[in-house]
C-alpha cells in the first residue's frame, strides 16, 4: 500500500481560518488590554486570506479528492467557501459596529468563534466522508451554540441552551445515520476512489437496503435541523430572537448555506441511487416547511421571530428545488442560497440598526414611520422584504422561478402550487413591515442607529439583490461549473 500523499492545498481555507481563530484567542488571552480593532483586523485578514485560498481552489487541477479521499476539491466546495466567507466578513463587520455602539456587550471571543464556525462550514461543504461531515458539523455547531449565548443576557443564554440541547439531539440522529450508512455499505466515503464509496456500494446493491433507507432518513433529520426545515424548526424562532443580531445575521445565512451544500453532496451524490426513496421525503419536508413557515410568521409581532419563520419557509423553497435530483435542481438551490444569503444578511443588518442599543426595538411597532425618519434604511429594507416575498425585479423572484421551474420539470407541480400559494400568504407579513415603515406615523422618540458605514454595507447588499434580479445571468456560468459533482 503506497503512503498517501499529503495534499493540503484544498483545505487551506479551513487551515487559514483556524490559524486566524487561534491567533485571535491567544491575543484575547495574553494581551494586557485587548483592542477591538486588532481582533477585527485578525479576523478580516483571516477571511481575506481564506478567500484567496478558495480562489486558487476554484482553478484546482490536482486530484479531485485529497487527504485519503475524505475531502473533495471541486468548484462546488469553492463556491460554498466564497459565499460563507462573504457572510463571515459581513458578520464580523456588523459585530464590530455592534460592539462600538454597546461596548459592555462586547466579547472578544466573537471573532475566533465565527472563524471556527466558518472553517467548519467550508469543510462540511467539501467533505467526501460522512465522518468528516459530522466532524465539521460539530465544529460549526459548537461555535454557534457559544455565539448564540455570547452576550450572557438571560434571553441569549436561554436561546443558547435551547439551541444546544436540540442541536445535540439532532447531531445524535445524524451520527446514527452515519453508523447505519456504514452498516449498509461498509464505508463512510461518499465517493470512493480506491475502494467503493457509498454511492458505488448503493448502486451495486451490495449491502442491506433497509439499513440504507434508515440511514437516509436519519441523515435527513440531522440536516433538516440544521437548515431549520419544518418539523425540525422549533429552535429557530427562539434562537433568532435571543441571539445578538450580528450573530443571527451571520448564522441564519451561513448555517443554511453550509448545511444545504452538504445535504446536496450527501443526497445528490452519496444517496443518488436512492433518489426515488428520498425525493418524496424532501418533497414532504419542503411542503411542510413552506406552509408552517409562512403561516406561523403571520402571527409574529417581533421582526426577528418573523424573519426566523420566514427562514423556515425559505428552507422549504430551497428544498423544493432539490426535489429535482439533477444539475438543474442543484443550480436552482445554489442560486437561491446565494440570493438568500444576500437578503438575510441585509435584512438582519437593518434590524440591527433599527433595534439600536440594547436591542430593545425589535417589535414591528419600532418600524412605524421608518421611511420618514431614515428613508434610505427603509428603502433598503423594503428591497430585502420584497425579495424575500419574491416580487420582481428583485433576485428573490428569479430564485423562486428557478426552484419552481426545477420542481415542475421533475413533475412536482403540486409542490410548486403549494409554494406559490404560500408565497401569497408570506407576502402579507412582508408587506406588513412595509406598511409600518411607509404608511404609519412614527410611534415615539425611538431613533434608529444613525451610523453611516453599516448603512452603506446594507445598501450594497440591496443593490446586489436588485442587480441579481435584473441580470441573474452573471451567475449562471459560475453555477454551471459549480453544479458539476464528480462521482
Amino acid at each position, binding site marked *: 500500500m503506497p503512503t498517501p500523499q499529503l495534499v493540503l492545498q484544498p483545505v487551506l481555507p479551513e487551515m487559514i481560518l483556524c490559524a486566524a481563530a487561534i491567533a485571535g484567542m491567544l491575543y484575547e488571552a495574553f494581551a494586557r488590554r485587548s483592542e477591538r480593532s486588532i481582533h477585527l483586523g485578525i479576523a478580516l485578514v483571516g477571511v481575506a486570506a481564506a478567500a484567496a485560498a478558495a480562489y486558487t481552489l476554484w482553478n484546482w487541477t490536482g486530484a479531485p479528492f485529497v487527504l485519503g479521499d475524505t475531502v473533495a476539491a471541486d468548484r462546488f466546495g469553492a463556491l460554498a467557501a466564497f459565499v460563507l466567507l462573504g457572510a463571515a466578513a459581513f458578520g464580523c463587520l456588523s459585530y464590530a459596529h455592534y460592539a462600538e455602539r454597546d461596548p459592555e456587550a462586547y466579547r472578544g471571543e466573537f471573532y475566533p468563534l465565527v472563524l471556527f464556525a466558518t472553517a467548519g462550514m467550508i469543510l462540511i461543504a467539501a467533505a467526501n466522508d460522512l465522518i468528516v461531515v459530522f466532524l465539521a458539523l460539530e465544529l460549526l455547531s459548537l461555535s454557534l451554540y457559544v455565539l448564540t449565548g455570547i452576550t450572557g443576557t438571560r434571553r441569549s443564554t436561554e436561546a443558547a441552551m435551547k439551541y444546544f440541547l436540540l442541536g445535540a439531539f439532532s447531531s445524535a440522529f445524524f451520527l446514527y445515520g452515519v453508523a447505519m450508512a456504514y452498516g449498509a455499505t461498509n464505508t463512510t466515503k461518499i465517493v470512493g476512489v480506491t475502494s467503493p464509496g457509498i454511492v458505488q456500494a448503493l448502486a451495486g446493491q451490495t449491502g442491506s437496503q433497509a439499513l440504507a433507507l434508515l440511514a437516509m432518513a436519519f441523515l435527513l433529520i440531522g440536516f433538516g435541523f440544521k437548515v431549520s426545515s419544518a418539523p425540525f424548526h422549533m429552535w429557530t424562532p427562539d434562537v433568532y430572537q435571543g441571539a445578538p443580531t450580528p450573530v443571527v445575521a451571520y448564522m441564519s445565512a451561513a448555517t443554511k448555506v453550509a448545511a444545504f451544500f452538504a445535504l446536496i453532496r450527501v443526497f445528490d451524490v452519496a444517496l443518488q441511487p436512492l433518489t426515488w426513496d428520498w425525493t418524496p421525503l424532501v418533497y414532504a419536508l419542503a411542503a411542510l416547511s413552506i406552509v408552517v413557515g409562512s403561516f406561523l410568521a403571520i402571527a409574529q409581532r417581533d421582526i426577528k421571530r418573523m424573519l426566523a419563520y420566514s427562514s423556515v419557509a425559505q428552507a422549504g423553497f430551497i428544498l423544493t428545488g432539490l426535489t429535482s435530483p439533477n444539475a438543474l435542481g442543484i*443550480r436552482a438551490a445554489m442560486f437561491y442560497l446565494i440570493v438568500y444569503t444576500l437578503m438575510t444578511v441585509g435584512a438582519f443588518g437593518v434590524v440591527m440598526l433599527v433595534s439600536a442599543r440594547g436591542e430593545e426595538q425589535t417589535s414591528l411597532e419600532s418600524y412605524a414611520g421608518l421611511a420618514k425618519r431614515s*428613508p434610505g434604511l427603509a428603502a433598503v429594507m423594503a428591497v430585502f422584504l*420584497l425579495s424575500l416575498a419574491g*416580487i*420582481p*425585479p428583485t433576485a428573490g*423572484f*428569479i430564485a423562486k*422561478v*428557478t426552484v*419552481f*421551474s426545477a420542481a*415542475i*420539470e421533475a413533475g412536482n*407541480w403540486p409542490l*410548486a*402550487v403549494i409554494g*406559490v*400559494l404560500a*408565497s*401569497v400568504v408570506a*407576502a*402579507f407579513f412582508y*408587506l*406588513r413591515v412595509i*406598511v409600518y415603515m*411607509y*404608511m404609519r406615523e412614527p410611534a415615539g422618540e425611538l431613533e434608529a442607529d444613525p451610523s453611516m458605514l453599516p448603512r452603506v454595507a446594507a445598501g450594497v447588499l440591496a443593490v446586489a439583490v436588485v442587480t441579481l434580479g435584473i*441580470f*441573474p*445571468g452573471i451567475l*449562471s456560468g459560475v*453555477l*454551471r461549473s459549480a453544479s458539476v459533482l464528480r462521482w
Partner: protein
Amino acid sequence: MNGSILSVVIFLPLAGVAVLAVGGRRMTDEAARWVAIVTALATFGASLVMLGDVDRTAAGYQLVEDTWWVRSVGLRYLVGVDGFSLWLVLLTTFLFPISILASWKIDRNVARYFAAILALETAVLGSFLALDLLLFFLFFEAILVPMYLIIGGWGSANRVYAAIKFFLFTMAGSAFLLVAILYLYAHSGAGGDASFDVRQLTTVAAGLPVQTSRVLFLAFFVAFAVKVPLFPLHTWLPDAHTEAPTAGSVLLAGVLLKVGAYGLLRFNLTLFPEASKHFATFVSVLAVIGIVYGAICALMQTDVKRLVAYSSVSHLGFVVLGIFAFTQQAITGGVLQMVNHGLATGALFLLVGMVYERTHTRELSEMGGLASVMPWLLGAFLFVVFASVGLPGLNSFVGEFLVVLGTFAVSHWFGSIAVLAVILAAIYLLWSYQRVAYGPVHEEHRHLPDLSGREVAVLAPVMALILVFGIYPKLLTSSIDPSTKATIAHVQPVGQITDVGQVRATGASP
C-alpha cells in the same frame, strides 16, 4: 432608434424614476413634478412614433425585439405589438401624463409618489408588449408594488386595508399563473429549445391533452379574472378604487383592469382555443352576472367613488362577454370597449376627484346643486356621464353596441341581459349626476371655485378623444380588426358563426 422603439416606450418612464431616485430629497417638489410630466409626455411621444411605425392593416406581431435576457432560466426579452396591444399602449401613455397632471397638488413625499407612478407605467407597458410569458409575468407582478404604494401611501382613511387587499388578491390569482407558465415551459423542450415565447408555446399547448390544457386555462383565467375583475373575484376593486388617490383610481380603472382583459384575449384564447370554447358559456355567465351585479351595486351606492368603481365591474363584464363570444364584432367591440372605458371612467374618476378636492366629501347626500356653483365642472361631468352611459356619438356607445351585436349572434339570452344593463347604467349614472348637480345647494359649497386652468388641461384632451372616438370609431376598429380575424381563425375552425352577417346568410333565426 427605430429598431427598438418598443423598448424606448417601455423603459423611458424608468429613466424618470432614476432621475427622481438620484435627485431624492435634494429635489424640490416642483422639480419632481416636472420630471414626472416631462417623462410621461416623452413616453407618449415615443408611443406616437411607434404608432407611425406600425402597419395597421396587418395582423400578427410587429416591431418585434427578441434577445436573450436570462439564458439559464429561459427568459427572453421578447416584445412586439399588434392590433390589440397597440391601442392599449397608447391609452396607457395617454392616461399617465393626464394622471400626473391631475395629481399636481399631492404634497407629501412628492418625488416618491411620482417615482411610483412612473414605475407603474413601465410595468403596465411591459405587460401589454411582452410576448415572452415569463417576461409578461414579471411585468404583471411588478405592477403590484407601485400600485400598492400609491394606494397605501397617498390614499384616504382606509388605505392600508385596501392596499393589502389589492396586493393579496392579485398575487393570489397570479400564483396559479406562474405555475401554469412554468408547466408549459417544462413541456416546451421536446421539439428543440425550451422557451417562454408565446408563439412557440401556442404549438406546445396545442399538443397537450385536453384535460391538462383545460386546467391550465383555468390557472390563466383566475389570474386575469381577478385583475379584470370578474364576478365573484371583484371584491378588492371597490375598496382599492375608493381609497386610492385620484390618479390611482384613474390608472386602476383606465389601464390596470385592462391588463386582465388583455391577458384573457392574448393568452387564454391563443394558448388554449379548445378550452376557451369549452369554458365560454361559463365565462360568459360570470361576465353577465358581473354586468348586472355591478350595475345593481352601483345603483345602491351612496359614495360616488364606490359607485364608479362598481360601474367598472359592470363595464368590464361587457369586455369579457365580447371576448368570449368569438365573433368579429364582439371581440373588436371588446377591445374598443377597453379603450373607451379607460377614457370615460378615467375621466369620471378625474371629475369625482375634482369635486372631492372642493367639497371634501364623496357622499352623494352631502352634495347637491353643484351645477349652479360650478357650471363648467358639472358640464364636463355631464358630458362624461353621457359618454359612460353609452350615448350614441360618444365613445362608449360603439364598443357596447358591437359587443351586444356580436353576442346576440351566439346567444340571445346573454345579449338581452347585457342590453338590460345598459339601461341600468343610464339609471345609476344619471341619477347620481342629478343628486350631485341639482337640488338645493349646501351652504358651505356656495363659493367653490370652478375649473382651474390646470384642470381644463387635464380634462380637455380626454373629452376630445371621447368625442373623436365616438364619431369616428373606424380609427380604432380598422387596426383592431386584422388581429381579431386572426384570433377568431385560431379559436373557431371554419363553418361556425364568426360574423353577424353570417347569421342572416345561413337563415338562422334572427
